[in-house]
């Protein structure tokens, strides 16, 4: 039970003068229930990669498997796949369109051809899962705050009951509290419902705090694929490809160089705090 990409290549505008490769020989195995962070600078192939995971793009060569089946087989039901692998695009609130929030969330399951009762039940559950109050259910989504709109948009995808949830920069443009709320929500969905999460982010601090595994893309290739500690140990290489490590990683590196007895492979604030307190004999 997993998503497997086997030697996937993707070339934009193939057979034209504009042809350029967006994915080069990408091999990945994402087992069920993982919380994965996907990072890379603008244009590194992140978005193209996630569009392959639910069959929105077809590899130029190579294969994508979901639960052991090739999703580009002639008889494969890709529509069902898109319900199982939910994709939350960047600024998903721009896709809200209905007159009230509840109707908007109903749109997805309705298109799956489910009976009205089931559609409404799913919409209700999804809005509850994202922590949306009943009193706002019948409000126009356009009167909500940025963070609330985004919750409604995520609920719209959750109502499809996905097994995998891919989120493309879900915190862009939100204030710090809004960012934290959305990330906690995603983390809750992962823990309580066992949904596989793939989080695309430009914030190294967020990625370090939440995910179990980081995939780093660079120029269409997978540059690193490991747990956060291991990936951020390569902070110098990350800088060369336009990324960085979380601030605390730099602090710990510098402290170590200054002769403090600390572990420099630290990626979260909590660990950094404990390491420094230990060095000062306060723990």
């Amino acid at each position, binding site marked *: 039970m997993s998503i497997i990409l086997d030697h996937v290549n993707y070339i934009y505008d193939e057979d034209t003068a504009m042809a350029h490769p967006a994915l080069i020989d990408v091999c990945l195995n994402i087992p069920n229930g993982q919380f994965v962070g996907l990072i890379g600078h*603008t244009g590194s192939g992140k978005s193209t990669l996630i569009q392959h995971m639910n069959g929105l793009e077809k590899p130029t060569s190579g294969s994508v498997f979901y639960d052991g089946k090739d999703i580009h087989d002639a008889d494969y039901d890709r529509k069902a796949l898109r319900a199982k692998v939910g994709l939350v695009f960047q600024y998903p609130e721009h896709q809200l369109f209905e007159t009230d929030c509840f109707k908007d969330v109903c749109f997805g399951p309705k298109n799956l051809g489910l009976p009205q009762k089931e559609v409404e039940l799913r919409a209700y559950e999804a809005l509850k899962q994202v922590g949306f109050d009943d009193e706002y259910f019948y409000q126009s989504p356009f009167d909500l*705050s940025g963070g609330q709109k985004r919750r409604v948009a995520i609920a719209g995808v959750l109502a499809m009951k996905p097994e995998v949830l891919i989120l493309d920069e879900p915190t862009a*443009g939100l204030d*710090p509290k809004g960012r934290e709320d959305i990330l906690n929500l995603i983390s809750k969905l992962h823990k309580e419902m066992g949904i596989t999460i793939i989080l695309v982010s430009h914030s190294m601090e967020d990625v370090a705090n939440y995910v179990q595994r980081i995939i780093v893309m660079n120029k269409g290739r997978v540059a690193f694929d490991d747990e956060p500690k291991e990936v951020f140990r390569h902070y110098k290489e990350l800088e060369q490809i*336009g*990324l960085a490590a979380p601030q605390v990683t730099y602090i710990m590196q510098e402290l170590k160089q200054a002769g403090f007895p600390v572990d420099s492979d630290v990626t979260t604030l909590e660990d950094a705090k404990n390491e420094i*307190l230990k060095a000062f004999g*306060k723990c």
Partner: protein
Amino acid sequence: MIRTKNLVFEYIRRDDEGNVEGITRAVDGVNLSVEPGQFIAILGHNGSGKSTLAKHFNALLYPTEGEVFIDGLNTEEDKNIWEIRQKAGMVFQNPDNQIIGQVVEEDVGFGPENMGIPTEEIWERVEESLKTVGMLQFRKASPNHLSGGQKQRVSIAGVIAMHPKCIIFDEPTAMLDPNGRKEVIRAARALNEVENITIILITHYMEEVIYADKVFVMDKGHVEMSGTPREIFSQVDKLKELRLGVPQVTLLAHELRNAGLPLPEGILSREELINELKRLK
């Protein structure tokens, strides 16, 4: 440079038939003044009124009550409007929404062209502006082929070419990757330090604020806190109440302090923290 007097702005919400449903006060009694050459940051949660306030600074919006003066000109007087928009330029969040030229240099020349500047001088301004933001080698490139940070720098060059005294950045880095963010903030700081242009930076990234001369924190349409970055970021708990945060370094220092290490509040940079810790060793 910028002065507001009891500035109030109200949105009137209407239903489908155009009847007034209610009034939202987005800016509520703001008094602030910005001196020429200052680097000002404005923080505040989503919906706190930051952007609405900023749109008053180049006469995109007019006050419901109160007054706004830009370099001594009242924004409410129609005859001032073009002069104000030339003095105060604006850079928005999404680089794709503000680039109109097919070629980088055309896009940058659009502003001065509309001001009726002679052609020769337009080209001089284009060259000088692109040089300032480090994009001169891309002058013949198509904006579609640039990265987000590069596009944003072209937008900035387009504003600089109008020779403004003040530039307002409304979340210019929200859509960029770490490198793009760095490029844009570096460009803004250079404009302030080298060209002495007044900068107003609106952002949700606390790390971008630490170099500012002064920080205003907005909440519910009014200025809730103001001070130097150090004064503001010393109040970790208050900022959290306002749905904001502090840079990760500052937070780490704050937590270490709470755990008993005698560190000062308001540490802003890695260097400061390391030096303080060395001192304690």
